[in-house]
C-alpha cells in the first residue's frame, strides 16, 4: 500500500511517500511499525500518530487493505 507523509513528518522521514508491503490482515498500527522499521528517519515519528486511510481519519486499530492510501498526519494546525 501507499503511505504518505506530510509537513514535519515528511521532513523527518526524508520523503513524502513510500510503498509498504504487509501480510494481511493488518492494521494502520502495523503500517506505522513497518514504516518506523524500514526508514531510519521514521524512528523520530511518534508511535501513535494521527492517521488517515483513503482520506478519512481512522484509529490505529483500523484494518488496511491492498491499494489503500495510508497517511500519517502531524497534529493538525490549520485555520
Amino acid at each position, binding site marked *: 500500500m501507499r503511505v504518505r507523509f506530510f*509537513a*514535519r513528518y515528511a521532513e523527518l522521514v526524508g520523503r513524502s511517500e513510500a510503498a509498504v508491503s504487509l501480510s494481511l490482515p493488518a492494521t494502520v498500527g502495523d503500517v506505522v511499525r513497518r514504516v518506523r522499521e524500514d526508514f531510519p528517519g521514521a524512528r523520530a515519528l511518534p508511535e501513535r500518530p494521527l492517521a488517515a486511510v483513503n*482520506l478519512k*481519519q481512522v484509529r490505529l486499530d483500523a484494518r488496511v487493505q491492498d491499494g489503500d492510501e495510508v497517511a500519517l*498526519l502531524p*497534529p*493538525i*494546525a*490549520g*485555520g
Partner: protein
Amino acid sequence: MRNAEFSEMSYLTRSPISLDALLAEVSSPACGGTCLFLGTVRDGPDEQGVTAIEYSAYEEMVQVEFGRLLADAGARWPEARIAVRHRLGTIPVGEASIAIAAAAPHRAQAFEACRYVIEEVKRRVPVWKKELRVDGTEVWVDPHGRPTSSPPVPLSASQRGGTHD
C-alpha cells in the same frame, strides 16, 4: 508542493482570498445576517518576529473533509449558507489564511455556523503551518502555535509561535 492553481470549485487557493467572491457565494434575499470570519497571520508580542507562515496540506483530504464539514454544518443549520476558503503557500503577516462566510435568516444562526466551521477546521482539516521568522529560521508550529521542531536558535519554554487563534 504543487504550483498550479486549484480548480474553480476548490476550497483551497494559493492566491489572496477574495472576500467579495466568498460573500457573493452565500448572499441570498432570505438571509438577514452574514458573518465573515478571517484568520490572519499574526506577529504579536508572543511571537518572535514572524514574517510569514508557510501553509501546506493533504490537499485531496482537505477537499473531502471540507465537504463533510459543510454537510455537517448544513445539517445543524439547514437555512444557513456557508462558504470557506483556505489559502496555502507562504502567507505574509496580516493576510488571511482562512475566510469563512456564513449567511442565515437571522444573526444567531450565522454567528453559530461560522464559529462551528472554524472550530471544526482546527480539529479535522489536515493543514500544517511553518513559521518563517525574521532571523531566517523556520519552525513547524502545533495547533496552539507552539514550536514542534527545534529551531537553530534556543527558545525559552514560555515563548509561543503564532497565528491567529
